[in-house]
């Protein structure tokens, strides 16, 4: 999910730690009532009995560890989410390859199968969850708050369920740019005069968020989610105008001035994602394009109870508000606003939505088609115009 980086040595460390942790828990584990439950087969909790929340907590504590993969600390507040989960349940979290991509998450659960270091849960782009489900890599599970997740954001069988999302936003350094763009149109027309140096978080050939920026540009320039070619043309024009900077735009490039405008998910630039004084995030006035990431439980998870407890935690008001604190919009936000479990102070901090725009969410099929279009035209059109 994050830009792919070199796999760190953390993996080795995490494996050692998990082996050690298992050694400790195996020594102290006492027989309990829930020990007969095969948590890997549990698809939902019951109010009482051996598959109640209480039994799940006990079983997860007995497992003692949870393996997660590709969760960067500054991504949707995952640093604090991991810390708070461990604090609440005393379960140690092994975070493997935190800067990994969705493809690497899927590869990890395929190749680490049978090892104690195999990731228990994944957080991937929706298309990866759909593929993983067809390959039998995911276990069905419905959290207690299942009904609060909108129907469009979950698999009816419980194999995957969206977790948090946001909108394509324009971040801009207000201290160096006098007239920050508030729309895609403004970026394409005022480039020369305003000195915009516009960057994406990565190449749209590898990054789902960068692809979303191209999709948004398409919608704003006369195209649609089914026709992203105008989005490629948009960036080809930016490049011709000298306003597009083909680099991995992040805090460092924003700070150095290499990029003074970045198109990215609102929540990934919020809360220090782009750590530059005067960095302002607006949702463009000419397109409201949103997307969610997706949770799934590994069907061969080495810690099946901890994996299910992790999901219960994420989909409790506490977990949802933690994502909200990261500037992301949790899947149950609407239900939480209705039943008043949302942290209103955090909700108020989200960037304002433009009036007159209805949110559009690309389907997996649309994303796949968009990826194919961008893949076959990006280098020849945008690359040729430089």
């Amino acid at each position, binding site marked *: *999910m994050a830009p*792919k980086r070199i796999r760190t040595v953390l993996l080795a460390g995490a494996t050692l730690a998990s082996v050690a942790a298992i050694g400790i828990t195996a020594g102290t584990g006492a027989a309990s009532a829930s020990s007969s439950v095969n948590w890997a087969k549990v698809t939902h909790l019951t109010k009482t009995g051996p598959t109640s929340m209480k039994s799940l907590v006990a079983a997860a504590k007995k497992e003692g560890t949870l393996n997660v993969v590709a969760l960067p600390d500054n991504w949707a507040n995952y640093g604090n989410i991991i810390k708070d989960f461990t604090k609440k349940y005393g379960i140690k979290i092994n975070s493997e390859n935190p800067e990994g*991509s*969705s*493809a*690497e998450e*899927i590869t990890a659960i395929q190749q680490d199968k049978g090892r104690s270091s195999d990731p228990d849960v994944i957080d991937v*782009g929706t*298309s*990866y969850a*759909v*593929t993983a489900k067809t390959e039998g890599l995911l276990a069905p599970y419905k959290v207690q708050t299942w009904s609060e997740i909108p129907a469009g954001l979950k698999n009816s069988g419980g194999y995957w369920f969206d977790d948090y999302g946001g909108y394509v936003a324009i971040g801009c350094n207000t201290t160096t740019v006098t007239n920050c763009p508030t729309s895609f149109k403004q970026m394409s027309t005022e480039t020369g005069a305003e000195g915009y140096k516009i960057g994406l978080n*990565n*190449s*749209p*050939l*590898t*990054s*789902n*968020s960068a*692809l979303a920026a191209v999709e948004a540009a398409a919608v704003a320039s006369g195209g649609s989610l089914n026709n992203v070619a105008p989005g490629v043309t948009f960036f080809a024009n930016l490049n011709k105008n000298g306003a597009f*900077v*083909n*680099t*991995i735009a992040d805090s460092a490039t924003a700070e150095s001035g*290499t990029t003074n405008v970045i198109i990215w998910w609102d929540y990934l630039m919020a809360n220090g994602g782009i750590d530059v004084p005067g960095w302002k995030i607006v949702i463009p006035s000419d397109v409201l394009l949103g997307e969610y990431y997706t949770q799934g439980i590994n069907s061969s998870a080495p810690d099946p109870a901890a994996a299910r407890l992790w999901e219960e935690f994420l989909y409790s008001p506490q977990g949802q508000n933690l994502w909200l604190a990261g500037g992301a919009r949790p899947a149950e936000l609407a239900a939480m606003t209705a039943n008043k479990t949302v942290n209103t102070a955090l909700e108020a901090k989200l960037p304002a939505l433009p009036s007159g725009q209805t949110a559009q969410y690309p389907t997996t099929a649309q*994303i*796949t088609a968009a*990826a*194919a279009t961008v*893949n*076959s*035209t*990006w*280098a*020849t059109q*945008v*690359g040729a115009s*430089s």
Partner: protein
Amino acid sequence: MTIDVTNASDPGASAPGSEAFVVKRRNFRNVLRALEPTFVVTPFVIYSFLGLGVPALAVFYLAFHGETGGWTFENMRLISHGIFLIGFENSIKLGLLTSLIPGVIGVFVAYAIQTSKSNVLKRLTSTGSGVLANFGGINLTFMFIATLGSAGILTAWLHALGISLTSIGFNLYTFSGVVVVYMYFQLPLMVLVITPALAGLRQNWREAAENLGASSWRYWIHVGIPVLMPSILGGMLLLFGSAFAAYATAESLTLGLVALAPIQIGNFLNGNVIAGETHVGYAIAVGMLVILAFVMLLYSLVRKRASKWLQ
């Protein structure tokens, strides 16, 4: 590139032994000696089979399979046109440009160093080439961005002098930029691999040629270049392979704006965008293997031809 394994199993067979026991023992020893190279080479063969053979076979197998199993040519059909064909074209162009140009210049540079009287210079350049030839990837990219990028030092200096790099057709983040950056490690690599061959040119060959009335030009045409040709071609082949398959440098520099075959493989295997199409990536890998095999074949043919001159 080429390793000449001299047969070490010369048994010295004519040793006469009067006692049968001695003969027997000697025969046994001779057999052992004859097998010696096999013993020595076996671990290497196993190693290459596991590290090279098995993955190559796996890539071939996967390239001709769909995501849901079953033999198919669909992946191959897909990569033989459109952006993937452009990727192959660019990669081959890049490989040729950055093997021929540094290949030729490298010979001259190496010759100049080789014939220099300064031992310090020789040692400095050989160490320097060793270091620079292995300098690549993201570090190299950053170095060039800081020097020749849009806000690079050299770019700024030239700008102060009224020279704009982009107006003369150079942009670091495009194909021309990749070529320039690759030269940075390709040239020292050529110097490194060609120097031993140059050292093998014996002074007395030249003296003999001159005694027979040959000019310097004729000496090179008839002696120097034919003797060096296999090494020069071998060196260029190495350069072609290294440029054709290099990933990190081009990826961090162009970020998808230049279609190159290895980067396209990376998009399929590491990406966040294209789910469930890794087999297309394997197909591109097979395409690259075939191209490299073809270049190797061409090389061995030319080399055979070139070594004829030596006889």
